[in-house]
């Protein structure tokens, strides 16, 4: 303890030893070689941290591991200091100070070793400029793709708005035309038969406006994937419900609906599944063949890859897919003109299914029937 106290209290004292020049036999050349080399090392070890400091101060936010760099600067500075002290000892033999400087250098060196050890895994994970460049190129490509997607979505939106406005304007234009005719009729001939015919048509067009607005609401709703009520849906019950709600249509066409169910229930939004089956069943009846009674077969299969497949097969008019395949599921497209339709049913079905990650496909034979295959 006394030695330690003595060491620190006399840290700068040099009386206990001869200066190094006088210790042993140094030739001038040998001594100055030692001294100048030590000073040169010290100067270099002083310049390196200054360069690093300059670098850090300029690019502080871009350089990783700034704390380690500070430690390095300290490490190099203290190494340099040992060489300075080594040179000074030729005239001023402060060996205590020399030992202290060595101790400080040893501590800082080991701190640097430990810190370096800690950051090695992190440093290894850093990307090289080439790797970063490749990532930038890949991300740019992704951005371009999503930009193209947005452009396409925008175009879809545009054509949706024009289609919607067309479908709304058509009956409104009719109402306008009919009102002109009605006014004219009332002012001139005032034939009660024509007047009531015109009023009947105005009423009909008004209903069309109303149902178009309802359809548009449905379309907007289906965009946001509202069907969250996932539950075990009993398919047989659901089909019965659809039949009861559309009894007049089903009965008057003497429709035969057969169910072929692997499982009675399947997990899905009840409302969504009802919408899907409703549209397919009603379509099958509406576009029935005039030469035979409508028959609809509904298959529910549990597939090998744990998915549910629903197949709805009818014996109706069929669709010429060589012409209409691309347009089949698009909004406001209709393929038969002898039956009133809005052109939104299949669009809504596809939206619901795809929003939930499923697919829908169609096979059809003109005048043979249509098969819709849905993977939920």
């Amino acid at each position: 303890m006394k030695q330690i106290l003595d060491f620190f209290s006399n840290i700068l004292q040099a009386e206990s030893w001869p200066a190094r020049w006088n210790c042993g036999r140094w030739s001038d050349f040998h001594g100055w070689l030692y001294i100048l080399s030590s000073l040169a090392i010290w100067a270099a070890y002083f310049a390196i941290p200054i360069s690093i400091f300059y670098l850090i101060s300029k690019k502080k936010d871009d350089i990783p591991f700034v704390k380690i760099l500070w430690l390095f600067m300290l490490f190099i500075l203290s190494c340099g200091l040992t060489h300075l002290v080594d040179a000074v000892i030729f005239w001023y033999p402060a060996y205590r100070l020399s030992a202290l400087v060595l101790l400080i250098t040893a501590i800082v060196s080991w701190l640097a070793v430990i810190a370096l050890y800690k950051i090695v895994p992190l440093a290894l994970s850093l990307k090289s400029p080439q790797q970063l460049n490749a990532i930038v190129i890949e991300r740019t490509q992704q951005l371009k793709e999503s930009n193209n997607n947005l452009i396409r979505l925008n175009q879809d939106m545009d054509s949706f708005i024009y289609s919607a406005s067309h479908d709304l304007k058509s009956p409104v234009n009719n109402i306008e035309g009919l009102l002109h005719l009605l006014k004219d009729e009332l002012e001139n001939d005032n034939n009660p038969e024509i007047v009531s015919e015109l009023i009947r048509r105005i009423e009909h067009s008004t209903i069309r406006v109303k149902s178009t607005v309802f359809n548009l609401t449905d379309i907007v709703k289906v965009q946001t994937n509202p069907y969250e009520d996932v539950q075990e849906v009993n398919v047989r019950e659901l089909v019965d419900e659809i039949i009861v709600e559309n009894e007049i249509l089903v009965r008057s066409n003497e429709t035969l609906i057969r169910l072929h169910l692997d499982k009675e229930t399947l997990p899905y939004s009840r409302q969504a599944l009802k919408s899907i089956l409703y549209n397919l069943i009603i379509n099958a009846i509406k576009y029935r063949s005039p030469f035979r009674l409508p028959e609809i077969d509904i298959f529910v299969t549990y597939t090998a890859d744990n998915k549910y497949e629903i197949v709805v097969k009818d014996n109706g008019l069929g669709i010429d897919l060589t012409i209409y395949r691309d347009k089949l599921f698009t909004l406001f497209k209709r393929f038969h003109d002898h039956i009133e339709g809005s052109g939104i049913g299949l669009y809504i079905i596809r939206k619901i299914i795809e929003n939930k990650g499923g697919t829908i496909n169609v096979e059809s034979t003109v005048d043979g029937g249509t098969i819709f295959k849905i993977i939920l």
Partner: protein
Amino acid sequence: MQTNNSILLVDDDLTSNFIAEKIIKKSGNSKSIQSVKNGKEALNYILENCLSDYKENCPQIILLDLHMPVMDGFDFLKHLSIEMPNYIEAFKIFILTSSSNPKDVEIANQYHIDGYINKPLNAEKVKLLIE
């Protein structure tokens, strides 16, 4: 003013056809008005009535809707210009539509058409197209 124009309405909207028919009749400018529900029916009508020697019912004016099931107005124009290139000039073809999509105008203008009329048809518009 001519009074012997026969007119073919091509539109799946039967009420629209009803209105057009009434208004054209009232204007007294047409001896015959026929209506068909889509482009395909219109092509058939033209085949039946314009290619024979007896052309009484061959229309001079065609009022064509654009958006129709089975065959729309664009496909009708395409078929007509490909299959009956000599005839297309013989008709006055007017687009009669509720569409305000500039793309529709653009596509229709690629074919031989004589005008683009927004619905509803009224007496003034009839006057314009007959002249």
